[in-house]
């Protein structure tokens, strides 16, 4: 049977490959965020129970069933806990499935983690990159195959991201997982990811797409109903990319966007969309709630409580989605509603109502308790007459009789809530003091300070907890008589976030409010982005996007070129250096040679104009002087007739708009340019031809130059000889 199993695992392998590389995976057992504070101060996120099973088990089970043979579990904060958990579990002794832990105390981001993995030099082939809080039942075979095929054709295809369709709520602009709306541009034929934007809250309907995206891709579909599953199939190059770019921290924000923006290396990211399979990452309390419900509703089959039982107690599924482990003592009068999970050894008293909740092992629930939509972990005692709504209650909490937990409350480990005490909505309560350097600003989620706290706590976990217990068992604490624990204050800015990311359903009034603003937007503001998307093409989205309207960036380009030119004139820089500088501007603004020619030309004309002059003749002399000196800078861009036409058009524009002084001199300068070989005869002729059908108003200069054109046309043959 060993052989049987192996062959099953090998299905995913490429048969053409001569040297079989076992499929590897890197599992990040640390999310490098603080969204699960205060719970994660005492226990790592991957060990938090999800429907009574620690999260990491879901991820490992999936990896194993997907044919992965070697997993590197990267532990950072609370690494000791993760490692000792894995050692106790059966994961380290599986046949054909090795789990290796990699420990690093000073990594503060996913980027650091991957750099550590790279240094270890353990990844030899394609690998699956996943974080330990991902629940999935997808089959990797297809995605892997696609990845390998692409890799064979194009060695720059380094990563395949797994995405899934899931509509975000139109009103509150977030998915059911509590993450922000995600915009992606995908080439529908090749499935290449072209654009990735997980916007923060400012979803006001504009989206900046690089013009070249539209130019380079014959078709492009823009999605905002996709959910990023955070399952990536990566080639080994990804690790070295992280090492090369040591500033990459966040997988998406830095790495993915970095690759998409930086076309120098030409690395490409592709997507694989799953349809019937399930995949989701638990990123915040909202997604904890959502994913738990999905598991109970069996979307994650076979990762459901009655199939996946770790430990020795079996859970049975009864009618209406009630999962019941063994040895539950329940009063006759207790009501257990549908879609509820009850762990083994739990006692439930009279007239207690439990609806839509998950109850862990060994809990004691008194009489007349109402529990609705809660996640009650292990060994919790809830005394009579309590009321709990949409709360997460961690191990060892004691809730004294008559206490009430309002929606969105998080009670961390061993907190005691005094009798008749009402815990206000969205409060986070922990035995530990709120860290002062706390910044829940997610932009700084990988800041050094936070993770240092994490590791400190890791070491002196128990001591702090016991100390706190001693000092705060005063009769009148923050949590009523005999209560223990600190209510964490919410920081600024997170007020807005608390209802977004909480376990509690979004309050009705918030939803109404959001719907109202959405409607207002629709009525007043055309820029609201409907699903089908009205796109404003934008020429680029470089970093200074935010403070300048990038539609005008040709204008900025010209300004830059002009400034460069003036500097060259004043500082007497060599022509070749000037050309080099303009070339670099050309690249950074993504311009064509014609644009440069136009810009340089107008810069020269402006310089000529700015030089003091008394009459038109002096001006003409100025122009001639400038051109004799700097002609080369201009002609280096005039390789083709198109660029020359561009120069003439530019000249026309200057005469019309910015510098009317040139208007009378148009023909003379043009003739001068012709003589200087800046523009050729063909260019002038085709310029004329181009404007033939234009409005009369546009033809002013053509008419002015008619003489010259006539002369050019009449003497084409002798042209060569007649030149001065």
């Amino acid at each position, binding site marked *: 049977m060993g052989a049987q199993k192996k062959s099953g695992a090998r299905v995913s392998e490429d048969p053409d490959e001569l040297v079989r590389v076992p499929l590897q995976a890197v599992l990040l057992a640390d999310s490098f965020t603080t969204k699960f504070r205060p719970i994660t101060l005492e226990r790592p996120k991957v060990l938090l129970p999800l429907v009574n099973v620690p999260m990491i088990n879901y991820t490992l089970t999936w990896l194993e069933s997907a044919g992965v043979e070697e997993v590197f579990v990267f532990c950072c904060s609370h690494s000791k806990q993760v490692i000792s958990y894995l050692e106790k579990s059966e994961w380290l002794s599986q046949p054909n499935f090795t789990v290796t832990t990699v420990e690093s105390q000073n990594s503060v981001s996913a980027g650091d983690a991957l750099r550590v993995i790279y240094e270890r030099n353990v990844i030899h082939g394609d690998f699956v990159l996943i974080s330990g809080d991902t629940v999935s039942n997808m089959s990797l075979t297809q995605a892997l195959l696609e990845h390998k095929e692409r890799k064979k054709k194009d060695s720059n295809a380094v990563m395949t991201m797994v995405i899934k369709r899931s509509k975000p709520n139109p009103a509150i602009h977030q998915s059911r997982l509590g993450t922000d709306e995600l915009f992606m541009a995908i080439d529908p034929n090749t499935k290449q990811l072209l654009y990735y934007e997980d916007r923060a809250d400012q979803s006001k309907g504009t989206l900046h797409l690089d013009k070249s995206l539209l130019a380079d891709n014959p078709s492009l579909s823009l999605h905002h109903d996709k959910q990023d599953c955070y399952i990536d199939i990566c080639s080994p190059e990804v690790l070295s990319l992280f090492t090369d770019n040591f500033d990459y921290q966040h997988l998406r924000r830095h790495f993915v966007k970095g690759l998409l923006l930086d076309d120098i290396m030409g690395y490409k990211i592709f997507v694989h969309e799953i349809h019937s399979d399930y995949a989701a990452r638990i990123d915040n309390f909202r997604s904890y709630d959502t994913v738990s419900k999905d598991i109970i*509703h069996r979307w994650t089959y076979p990762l459901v409580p009655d199939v996946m039982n770790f430990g020795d107690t079996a859970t049975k599924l009864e009618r209406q989605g009630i999962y019941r482990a063994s040895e539950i003592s329940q009063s006759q009068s207790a009501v257990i509603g549908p879609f509820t999970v009850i762990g083994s050894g739990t006692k439930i008293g009279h007239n207690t109502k439990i609806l839509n909740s998950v109850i862990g092992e060994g809990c004691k629930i008194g009489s007349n308790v109402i529990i609705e939509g809660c996640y009650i972990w292990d060994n919790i005692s809830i005394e009579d007459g309590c009321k709990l709504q949409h709360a997460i209650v961690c191990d060892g909490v004691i809730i004294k009789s008559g206490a009430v937990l309002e929606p969105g409350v998080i009670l961390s480990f061993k907190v005691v809530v005094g009798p008749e005490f009402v815990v206000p909505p969205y409060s986070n309560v922990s035995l530990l003091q709120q860290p002062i350097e706390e910044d829940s600003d997610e932009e700084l989620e990988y800041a050094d300070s936070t993770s240092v706290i994490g590791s400190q706590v890791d070491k002196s976990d128990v001591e702090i907890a016991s100390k706190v217990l001693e000092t705060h068992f005063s009769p009148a604490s923050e949590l009523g008589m005999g209560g223990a624990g600190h209510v964490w204050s919410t920081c600024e800015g997170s007020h807005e976030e608390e209802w977004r990311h909480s376990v509690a359903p979004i309050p009705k009034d918030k939803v109404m409010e959001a719907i109202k603003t959405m409607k207002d937007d629709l009525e007043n503001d055309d820029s609201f982005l409907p699903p089908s998307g009205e796109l404003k093409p934008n020429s680029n989205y470089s970093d200074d996007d935010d403070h300048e309207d990038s539609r005008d960036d040709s204008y900025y380009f010209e300004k830059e070129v002009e400034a460069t030119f003036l500097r060259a004139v004043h500082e007497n820089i060599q022509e070749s250096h000037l050309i080099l500088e303009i070339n670099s501007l050309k690249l950074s603004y993504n311009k064509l040679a014609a644009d440069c020619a136009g810009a340089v030309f107008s810069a020269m004309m402006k310089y000529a104009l700015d030089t003091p002059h008394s009459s038109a003749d002096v001006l003409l002399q100025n122009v001639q002087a400038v051109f004799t000196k700097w002609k080369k800078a201009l002609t280096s861009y005039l390789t083709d007739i198109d660029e020359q036409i561009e120069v003439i058009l530019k000249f026309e524009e200057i005469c019309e708009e910015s510098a009317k002084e040139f208007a009378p001199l148009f023909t003379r300068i043009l003739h001068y340019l012709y003589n200087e070989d800046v523009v050729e005869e063909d260019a002038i002729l085709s310029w004329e031809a181009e404007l033939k059908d234009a409005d009369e108003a546009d033809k002013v200069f053509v008419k002015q130059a008619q003489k010259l054109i006539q002369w050019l046309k009449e003497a084409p043959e002798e042209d060569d000889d007649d030149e001065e």
Partner: protein
Amino acid sequence: MPDVQALVNDFVNLLKKRRIEGSQATAKQTAVLLRSVISQQRVPHTNQATVLINAVRAVGEQIIDVNPIELAVGNIVRRVLHIIREEDLSLVTDAVAGLGMFAGSDDEDDVERDDYPALSAASVAAAARSTSRPPSLQTLLEDVTDSAVVPPTPSSGGDSEGISRTLEKGSSGRKFKHDVIEAVNELIQDITSCHEQIAEQAVEHIHQNEVILTLGSSKTVLEFLCAAKEKKRSFKVVVAEGAPRYQGQVLAKELAARGIQTTVIADSATFAMISQVNMVIVGAHAVMANGGVIAPIGLHMVALAAQRHAVPFVVLAGSHKLCPLYPHNPQVLLTELRSPSELLDFGEFSDLMDSATGSGSLHVVNPAFDYVPPNLVSLFITDTGGHNPSYMYRLIADYYSADDLVVKQRPTTGS
């Protein structure tokens, strides 16, 4: 026996992860596993059967409850236990009576032994000491099938000689084990060939120009219909597509490719079509002791429609699907709720399942199996022939020994 334990763990793992599914595959894998358990088990000189039974039972306990819906696992464990008991019995018979198999086969059609009470391990041992006991029906049947399918090989004669010889030498251990393994091999053979065995009977049941309705896809049904086709019967098949997995469409494709006139209908059109149908032929997941059938979802409805129009409802089932247990609360305990994504596209309905905005009121349930009560079944066709639902208990008495019905022997913690 560390090796065996590893194999067992492997198997448990596969079952648990739902990597082995389908009764035939499960049955075969179980039998192969038990064969290696037996072959690796050391047998002492005395009480060989008890030792083997205990070994098999120990493994059985671990693998039966892993996936309660795969009843085939339990069936095979019980079959193997029964084989061990029978072999032991025949060995004893041979030894004490000093007769070869030949004496036993004289009693082939001895009807009164049909319902001979099966023996417990203790009584087997007692019997071994006291008196000669003729082999029970199972051995007889196996002999019959042996001689019917495979021409009697010289080895069968050699067997009995060997037995007496080794017995004389007092080292019957290896021989006994060998016999048991042989019998298990036959069982594996039976499981593998059950489709052909069933298909052989096709012409007896499918007549010219009949219209046959089936639902979903079953390999047994496919082979059955093809066998009839090969025998130049011409008939039409109506296939209900079998939502939500739509295996019926796959079956229809196969049938049409083999030149059988096939019509595909929606499951909901079954009742409308049934009046034009002569016979319903379906596969089963398991057959319970009362003749009830655990079958792919939708078949209860088909069975009711067939009964309403007095159309025979025929169930094809290999003998490994025969389960000696009575169904208790089958709608809950003997079904499996699969992922709702087979019904609904998750992405399409994700906003309705969003509990955060209070609209999480959409629930989807996707049970995999139906329970068809015995009164709706007209005929079972197994590899040993056609049987009435009411005859199932007899078949079960043949295949299983009553002592093994509860595999868990020790007082267990909880249920």
